[in-house]
């Protein structure tokens, strides 16, 4: 061990630029540029712009309050009775109150129907519709849409909780910017202190959602609105026939809205807290489902945005290209990198891996501290998460990457998402047949 450390230190002090680039090309070229330099630059621009245009924000807020449009909050779900109760009561605390709550019970087999009917009788929710037979998340949301009367639709998950001003803040972008089709809320991890697994996810969410989506939103390439918290213009959803079969319907609807030429914005101050899987096994299952949808929706269903046609828009192309590059292609490239290191730098392999972990950890810490300045609302102090940052190398670099690879392979070769029990068989069968 002593020898190893000596070697490592000697290596670090003697490494030249050429050598460094040769060994860490992957980090420097892809991740360094995309996730540090561009992000940092965009965040700074965003802050500065926000400062100089703060009067526009005030005007937007005023026009929202002047109009006070009716909002339809739709909450689809199965066996969510107890959550719905808490959620409905907490929504009474929202600063913005002109909303109707529509709960769709997608074939629950527990006490949800009774709880729902009671909440309706007590006036906590406006509508409770139950499907005796499960139809899947998309159809449940669509059913809510069918009876929604609001000008904007807000899609919520029953098991999440929302900041008091969350509804107000997710609506403001519609009044702040032109041509907004949908706005995504900021999703944070509520159960971050439950286990190592949830802590790592909290860091991941902070990076990829709280920060990543500000950047994507600013670059105009935001391509997903979390199902847990999203606001949509109702007329646009009507035009699109609302949601298509999932999984991945959150991303799908966003792409469809983009294809119509509308912009998607991220509202970092519209905060929602969600519970994430607390074991790696559960997390693996969730991510396999999410990652499959990249192939199913980006690469298959919406491949047309990559090609010049009448619906072509550069921003859509860029959004897709970025997504596919950074997920699918880079994922493959990473294996090339590993092979490169294993075969070409065989003698130094242990040293290189050690150094790899050090570099990533240092950069993660730096990034975490730097970007914390841009996160308006944090669930725990920065110092709480710092001890876990070294683990992120394993979590990001290995765990998530391997899960992703497996999902891609399963979906590319077997269209595995169509067999996912997340949708009822009746819907999946049809989706597979129609290749959607």
């Amino acid at each position, binding site marked *: 061990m002593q020898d190893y450390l000596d070697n490592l230190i000697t290596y670090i002090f003697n490494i030249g630029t050429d050598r460094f680039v040769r060994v860490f090309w992957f980090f420097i070229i892809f991740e360094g540029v995309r996730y540090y330099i561009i992000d940092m630059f965009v965040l700074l621009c965003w802050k500065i712009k926000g400062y100089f245009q703060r009067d526009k924000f005030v005007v937007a807020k005023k026009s929202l309050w002047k109009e006070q449009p009716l909002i339809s909050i739709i909450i689809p779900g199965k066996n969510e009775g107890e959550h719905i109760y808490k959620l409905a009561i907490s929504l009474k605390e929202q600063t913005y109150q002109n909303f109707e709550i529509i709960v769709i019970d997608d074939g629950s087999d527990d006490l949800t129907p009774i709880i729902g009917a009671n909440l309706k009788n007590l*006036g906590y929710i406006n509508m409770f*519709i139950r*499907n005796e*037979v*499960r139809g899947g998340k998309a*159809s449940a949301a669509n059913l809510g849409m069918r009876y929604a009367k609001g000008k904007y639709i807000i899609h919520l998950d029953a098991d999440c909780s929302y900041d008091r001003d969350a509804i107000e803040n997710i609506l403001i972008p519609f009044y702040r910017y032109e041509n907004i089709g949908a706005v995504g809320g900021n999703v944070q991890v509520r159960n971050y202190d439950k286990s190592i697994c949830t802590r790592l996810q909290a860091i991941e969410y902070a990076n990829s959602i709280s920060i990543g989506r500000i950047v994507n939103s600013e670059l105009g390439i935001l391509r997903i609105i979390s199902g847990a918290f999203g606001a949509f213009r109702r007329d646009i959803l009507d035009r699109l*026939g609302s949601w298509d*079969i999932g999984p991945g319907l959150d991303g799908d609807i966003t792409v469809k809205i983009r294809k119509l030429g509308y912009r998607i914005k991220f509202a970092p101050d519209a905060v929602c807290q969600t519970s994430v899987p607390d074991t790696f096994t559960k997390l693996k299952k969730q991510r396999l489902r999410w990652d499959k949808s990249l192939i199913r929706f980006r690469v298959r269903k919406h491949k047309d945005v990559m090609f010049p046609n009448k619906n072509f828009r550069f921003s859509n192309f860029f959004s897709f290209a970025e997504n596919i590059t950074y997920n699918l292609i880079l994922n493959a490239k990473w294996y090339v990198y590993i092979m490169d290191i294993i075969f070409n730098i065989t003698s130094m392999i242990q040293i290189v891996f050690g150094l790899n972990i050090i570099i990533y950890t240092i950069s993660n810490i730096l990034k975490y501290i730097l970007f914390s300045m841009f996160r308006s609302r944090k669930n725990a102090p920065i110092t709480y998460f710092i001890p876990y940052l070294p683990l992120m190398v394993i979590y990001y670099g290995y765990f998530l990457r391997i899960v992703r690879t497996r999902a891609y392979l399963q979906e590319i070769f077997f269209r595995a998402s169509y067999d996912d029990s997340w949708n009822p068989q*009746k819907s999946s069968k*049809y989706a597979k047949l129609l290749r959607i």
Partner: protein
Amino acid sequence: MEKNRLFKKITPLLKIDSAVIEFEKLNFKKINVNKVWHIEQLIGYDAIILDASNLEFARYFINTIRSHHNTEYYLKPLFIYKPHPLLDIDLHNMYDGEYTSEKDLPEMKQIVWDIFLKTTEIEDVLSLSYEAQIIKRVLNYFYTRGINEIYCTKSTFSNYGYVYPMLNAILKEDGESKGLDLLEWAEQEGLITGKFHERIYLCNKCSGGFLSFREVCPSCHSSDSNTEDLVHHFPCAYIGPMSDFEDQYENELNCPKCNKNLRHIGVDYDKPSVIHHCNQCKADFQDLLVHAKCICCGVDTEVQFLIPKKVKKYEIMKKGKLAAISGILASESQKIIPNMIRFDTFKIMLQHEIYKVKYYKESALLLSGIHLNNLYELQQKIGRHAYDRLIHDLLTEVKNMLKSIDLVSIDNDDTLFITVLDADIQETNDILLKIKTLFTVLIYDNFKKFEVDIKVATIDITTDNNIEDYIKLLKKEL
């Protein structure tokens, strides 16, 4: 209380017929349709032979004499002559036999003598409660007839659909359905014992049993609504009522989202649920409320607020027969809530506490009151039955909040009385406020946001004033 009677009353004519049959020292007075009678004119006759060919007249006559309060009339032997075929249905056991010709007279004589003998055994007790008096009349009648069972029959002539002989006739003016409570009371007293026959639901305003059940809109309570299947088109996940898919011109179903034809249920679409649309207020909903409209008084209530009652067939117990002979030993009628002290008992116990405080001077005694000012409005809405249950629940909640030595009771005016030993006023007021909040919330949440008006007060009991004075004093504060 307005009532829509289902039968007509006949106004008696003024002519008197005096056909009388005499047989072995007994005289049978014949009463005919169209021949008028006056009830006093029946005095002195041993028995009556009623021409029952006219159903309405027969019913009127029988009900009139049987509901009379004087034993001279309501126990009088009565035979019918030329009975209408439908007569027996609701006048079962209200007459003593049929007269066809003079050859029946020896048998009738025997019946009349039996009744006379038994009638002499009957003791008339006047100082009875209202319930006891009515039940005693019923028992008297059955005793003199040697009948042991009180059977009910289905009948549209009763406003709750069933007729008990004697009881319905007596109660006509006071509301027949009260009879069920009276029978229940008599059963509790051990006079009769019942066997379940049927469960019925009664209007909580007029106790009528003729109800029209309809499914109504939960928001505006209109019954003008349409029901449609919800259709889920699998390929595009569209879901909406059947009418969204119906094509005006062609007789086929098309999906409004993807324009495809619906082909085969279970394959490309299904019907996961149904939805109702109110034509009055345009609401869409799945939870149809079931309301019952009372045909008698027109009140429209949720079925959960109807009064459930059991209709039973009763057998008269030994105690019941004795009651006919000797009068009834009835418990005093008062608001009785299980596990709670009755108000008169409470007063006695309070008096006792006051003596203790006065003589031993070691403990302080407070008397608190909680008056539920507008609770009677709720009673009108939800009916007596649900109301009694509510009072019981409220009292239980109060008991749970107090020390076990504290006494709780309620008077007939919705005022709860609580004695508090060894506590200061501040402490007591805190508890009272807690109770007040609890009641308000409980009632608000459970009874459609009914806002109950609650007053609380506490008085210090120091001197040996009369107990009634203390209660008056406290009620003034409320």
